[in-house]
């Protein structure tokens, strides 16, 4: 009485399990599988390998946004200087570590970098960034403990201007997107950065932890609404989490993934490659 389960059904069931266990989420997985089912119905696809390939092509299309994998900022001489990046995200997502790695990449590419210790709240946050600054050989601007984060970032950007630095990376304290006063604080940091350099920050980088499930979508929506996020970094992809929630985020908000974090050392930051990401998703 199992009812005739066709090859199609069992293949689709397998694909469904693959998508769900990769944190792709119900809405996005359903849309992707509907697209595949349509192709099966139209007899456009016959065998399981083709179904998988159709999924891969569609997911790659969603992720390959303009700016994805356009990693280093535009630094042709005469271009914007300093290029200011404000790094935001929920607690523990990997902001401070990503800043350290990014600073190293920029220095290796011959750019001068200033770090802003905009997390004046959490225990030893400034000390943590100072260690990274020492590792990569970049100056770090700190305030006193409990100092106003906006003024620390302002000073960091100012120092970038006076020292003719190429890039300023501003760290901020982790915060949950549901906390309105903390989101207001970030908006103020952004406004104050613009006072130091009109048009700054040129990049608002939202750092997402790839072990997060569907809550990452709420994070992206809220941070984007508050700050007009311009790029994403997806951390901890060296683990077993697939980070599939990024597909729905890219589809809905059209925010490009710039970087992926693949470990805890200074070299563990790669430019995002949609094709590589999709391959890993289906492993």
């Amino acid at each position, binding site marked *: 009485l199992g009812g005739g389960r066709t090859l199609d059904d069992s293949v689709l069931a397998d694909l469904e399990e693959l998508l769900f266990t990769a944190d792709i989420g119900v809405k996005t997985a359903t849309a992707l599988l509907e697209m595949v089912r349509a192709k099966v119905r139209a007899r456009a696809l016959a065998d399981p390998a083709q179904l998988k390939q159709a999924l891969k092509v569609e997911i790659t299309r969603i992720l390959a946004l303009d700016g994805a994998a356009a990693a280093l900022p535009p630094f042709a001489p005469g271009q914007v200087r300093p290029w200011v990046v404000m790094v935001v995200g929920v607690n523990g997502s*990997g902001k401070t570590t990503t800043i350290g790695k990014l600073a190293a990449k920029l220095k290796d590419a011959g750019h001068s970098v200033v770090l802003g210790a905009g997390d004046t709240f959490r225990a030893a946050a400034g000390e943590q960034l100072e260690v990274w600054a020492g590792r990569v050989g970049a100056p770090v601007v700190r305030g006193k403990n409990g100092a106003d984060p906006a003024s620390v970032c302002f000073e960091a950007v100012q120092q970038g201007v006076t020292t003719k630095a190429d890039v300023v990376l501003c760290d901020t304290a982790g915060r949950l*997107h549901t906390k309105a006063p903390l989101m207001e604080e970030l908006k103020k940091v952004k406004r104050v950065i613009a006072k130091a350099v009109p048009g700054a920050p040129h990049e608002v980088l939202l750092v997402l932890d790839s072990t997060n499930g569907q809550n990452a979508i709420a994070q992206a929506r809220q941070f984007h609404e508050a700050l007009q996020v311009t790029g994403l970094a997806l951390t901890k992809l060296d683990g077993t989490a697939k980070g599939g929630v990024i597909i729905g985020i890219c589809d809905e908000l059209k925010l490009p993934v710039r970087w992926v974090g693949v470990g805890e050392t200074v070299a563990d930051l790669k430019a995002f490659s949609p094709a590589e990401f999709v391959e890993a998703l289906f492993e």
Partner: protein
Amino acid sequence: TVAKGFKAARNKLKGRTEITTEVVDEALRDIRVSLLEADVSFEVVKRFVARVREKAVGEVVETRVKTARGKLQVTPQDHFIKICHDELEGLMGPVDTSLSLPDRVLSGIMLVGLQGSGKTTTAGKLARKLKQDGKKPFLVAADIYRPAAVEQLKVLGAQLDVPVFHEAGLQPPELCKRGREAAARAHATVVIYDTAGRLAVDDQLMIELEQIKAAVEPANILLVCDAMIGQDAVKTAVEFDRRLDLSGFVLTKLDGDARGGAALSIKEVTGKPIKFLGMGEGLDRLEEFRPEGLASRILG
């Protein structure tokens, strides 16, 4: 939300004097979607739906018989919802928020987990709670890798007036051993070991945890888990449990809007209880686990 799923399910059953298996399946589809959106693990959702279906279809047959005999005790809708709630409560499991801290013995609490899950902060929270409970806590900073990790714990210890032990140049197992000795010398009654975040699949670092356990034999080993975690929760919990035989879990960052479905999954799959909930960054933000709170949150 899962509540929307349950509401939709309930509405599908409304006003019927009997429910057919087709209606049950339709209702279960809504609930399945809700649980997946709440980050409950795919396998656990599958099992939950199968168990509810089995019971609900059994109920269909029963109510049909009762109707034939002219008595209908409870509406099929209430039956179905009750089955779902009972199953969910079953998944939440019996509450056990106790820590093994027998009198006149120096007991250990070892905190482990993925990177950034909230271990160091939780160490501080536990120290604060234990001090309030009349215990004498002692912190050991055994994360030798993360920049300023030791400093972070020392800042928390200073805020709480709780001693923090660290000795440079030692590997974590030896460090914890000496930390325990220092705790004993200080006449502490509970020693809390903060360890570095690590991937469950990092064999070297997982062995390190096994070595710490062997060195100091902590009476309590808690996996600190971020409530926002997705489908990876089960793999992570199973591996940490397999290696260390966990006492239970701490679920952190529940002051956000993460549904926390991972809580169901890790409990179901390991059988270990959720002991504490992290409800904020402040050191006073630690609560004992209550199933109703979490169940209603996962149900939306």
